[in-house]
């Protein structure tokens, strides 16, 4: 620790030497550092407080707010009327469009692909890791999240910015309807909401009527293939299966349990159900499945009793009823025999594989790192 000797000015040497001593003292003395910290901390804090108070001002400017409790129990102040909405999940986007509030959506996720107009909206990222600043830049009156796929961290981050976030959390088909109605109420579309759900309930009771007295069929809902995941009992999907006259052979308290193939072989489900709009991927998976050792033991695989549903089935939105209808028709063709138009239109080789259209698998929404 020597200073260079070529310095010609004694004054400079003195200054540098003193500074060096101070620095050395700092590297030696813990206490000096602490005092230094204690001296600057209040300055820094006051600066922060000023910036903080500054940014809060502009948020209190909206005219009237209503206070509601959302479906996860949070109290939310929602400005009225709601003109600009950001949706954080495909199911939410679908619900908003069904309520006729599609034109009020100013932003949605990269995975919102139904209805097609949803793809035209400004995207704010994926549901698991949206860009908070992209959402803030859209100046939404309301952000609608869903507990199923959004992270609580995103909700907290938006709350901190003073943005109202309403989180839905439907766990049964009935709750999908009530959730839709509540969203309708918040958006000033109460009548549209009631009409929509009344229609959906009517369609469900029509299915109930046709299936009355028929025994439920045992099914395995394949949510994910590797590792094999199915649905647990407290999910909207399990309830939707029940409404379609299907009984999930898996009974688990977890929402999306990982299943041992042995257990499936033991339970011998009558049908395997997949909800996926990517027809090519489904074909590949099913062909591959028939060649796997354990799966060949399944009666349902040998007899090709697969039901492939559209993704409507895996979104807790009003479209869920489409999925329930598809499944009920596939499992009980005789009960729907009168609707010859539907089954008759199917090509013969698709008698067992009922396909419906659309695209990305729901669970690919869970981006890298997403896990259920």
């Amino acid at each position, binding site marked *: 620790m020597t200073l260079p000797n070529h310095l010609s000015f004694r004054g400079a040497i003195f200054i540098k030497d003193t500074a060096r001593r101070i620095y050395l003292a700092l590297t030696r003395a813990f206490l000096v550092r602490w005092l230094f*910290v204690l001296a600057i901390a209040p300055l820094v804090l006051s600066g922060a407080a000023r910036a903080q108070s500054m*940014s809060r001002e502009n948020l209190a400017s909206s005219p009237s707010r209503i206070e509601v409790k959302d479906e*996860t129990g949070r109290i939310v102040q929602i400005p009225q009327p709601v003109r600009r909405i950001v949706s954080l999940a495909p199911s939410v986007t679908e619900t908003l469009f069904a309520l006729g509030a599609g034109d009020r959506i100013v932003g949605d996720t990269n995975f919102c692909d139904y209805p097609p107009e949803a793809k035209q909206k400004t995207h704010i990222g994926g549901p698991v890791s949206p860009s908070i*600043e992209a959402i*803030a*830049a859209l100046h939404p009156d309301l952000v609608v999240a869903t507990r199923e796929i959004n992270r609580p961290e995103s909700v907290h981050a938006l709350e901190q910015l003073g943005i109202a976030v309403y989180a839905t959390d439907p766990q049964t088909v009935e709750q999908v309807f009530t959730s839709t109605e509540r969203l309708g109420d918040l958006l000033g579309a109460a009548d549209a909401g009631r009409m929509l759900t009344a229609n959906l309930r009517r369609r469900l009771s029509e299915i109930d009527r046709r299936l009355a007295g028929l025994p439920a069929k045992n099914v395995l809902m394949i949510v994910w293939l590797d590792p094999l995941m199915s649905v647990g009992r407290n999910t909207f999907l399990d309830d939707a299966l029940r409404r379609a006259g299907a009984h999930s052979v898996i009974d688990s308290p977890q929402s999306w349990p990982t299943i041992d193939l042995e257990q499936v072989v033991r339970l011998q489900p009558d049908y395997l159900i997949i909800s996926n709009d990517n027809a090519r991927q489904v074909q590949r998976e099913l062909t591959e499945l028939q060649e796997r050792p354990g799966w060949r033991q399944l009666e349902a695989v040998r007899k090709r009793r697969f039901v492939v549903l559209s993704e409507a089935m895996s979104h807790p939105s009003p479209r869920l009823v489409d999925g329930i209808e598809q499944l009920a028709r596939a499992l009980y063709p005789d009960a729907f025999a009168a609707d010859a138009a539907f089954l008759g239109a199917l090509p013969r080789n698709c008698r067992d594989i009922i396909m419906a259209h659309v695209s990305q698998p729901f669970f690919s929404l869970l981006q890298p790192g997403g896990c259920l």
Partner: protein
Amino acid sequence: MKPLTLRRVLWSCALLAAVLLGIVLLALRLGAVPFSFADLGQNLWWLVSGQPGKISTDFRLIMVDIRLPRILLGIVVGAALSVAGAGFQALLRNPLADPYVLGVSSGAALGAILALLAAPAIPLMTPAAAFLGAAATIAGVYFLGRRQGQLDSGTLLLAGIVMASFLSAMIMFLMTTLASRELRGISFWLMGDLSTSIPRGLLWILVVGFLAAAGAILTTASDLNVLLAGEREAMHLGVDVTRVKLVVYISASLLTGLAVSVSGAIGYVGLLVPHVMRMFFGSDYRLLIPTSALGGAIAIVLADTLARTLIAPTELPVGAMTAMAGAPVFIYLLRRRLA
């Protein structure tokens, strides 16, 4: 090696600080919502010169409320991790040591998971519980790592690694058996993520905690230099080895705990930055600690900017970014030095 002078310390730090400033400006400029440099400069001037009334609403919302706090968080986390890494490398006399080598990150993650299971709705619960988890792990490893009443580097390292794998196993067990929906964020957490907004009060607690703990490590810097020669040699040269090891162990663990509790386990930075700084500035700890702090801040802010912008508007976890960008850079530097 050239003798360390104050001039060299100041110039090195000034150089790195200038780079950091440039990166911060770039990070402020880039993001899902674009701003021009002119706009940025104008608004920043208004902010600094005390005319906040003139700042546009968008700028206030996006810069002041979102980007700036995130960049500041990145600076503190990066500096803390790098200083902790440098500290552990000296303490364990192992070039592979990083802030997580003693299991602090797993302890923090376990604490966070328990908090998410117990009280998912309380926002500040997670960082608090993560910090408690880290602290408990630190204490546990400390008692396991002692030998005849003294911290023994080898025993400490083994105790830390065993603790880390045990805690990771607990995390995997909880994640598969409970599968609560609140745990979805955990994988982000294990990878490291700066997108979680934290209240400003917490940010300033972090700053103060960082300055205190990094300062404590800096007070032992000249002793750490001697310690490089070996414990026995240091003891003969009059270094209070027990005290130095205790101070470095506690401070470096505290730094790691602070960083992990707000950002999850961001990998690689704590390992790489001290080594890179050694390549550039030599291995004198009196210089290495301040340069590592600045270098870590640069690395994280840069990585986080990439994480925010690469596939915008979707965000990548910053930990994935640091590992992806850090490994090739490090290999390049290492080969160049050997050549």
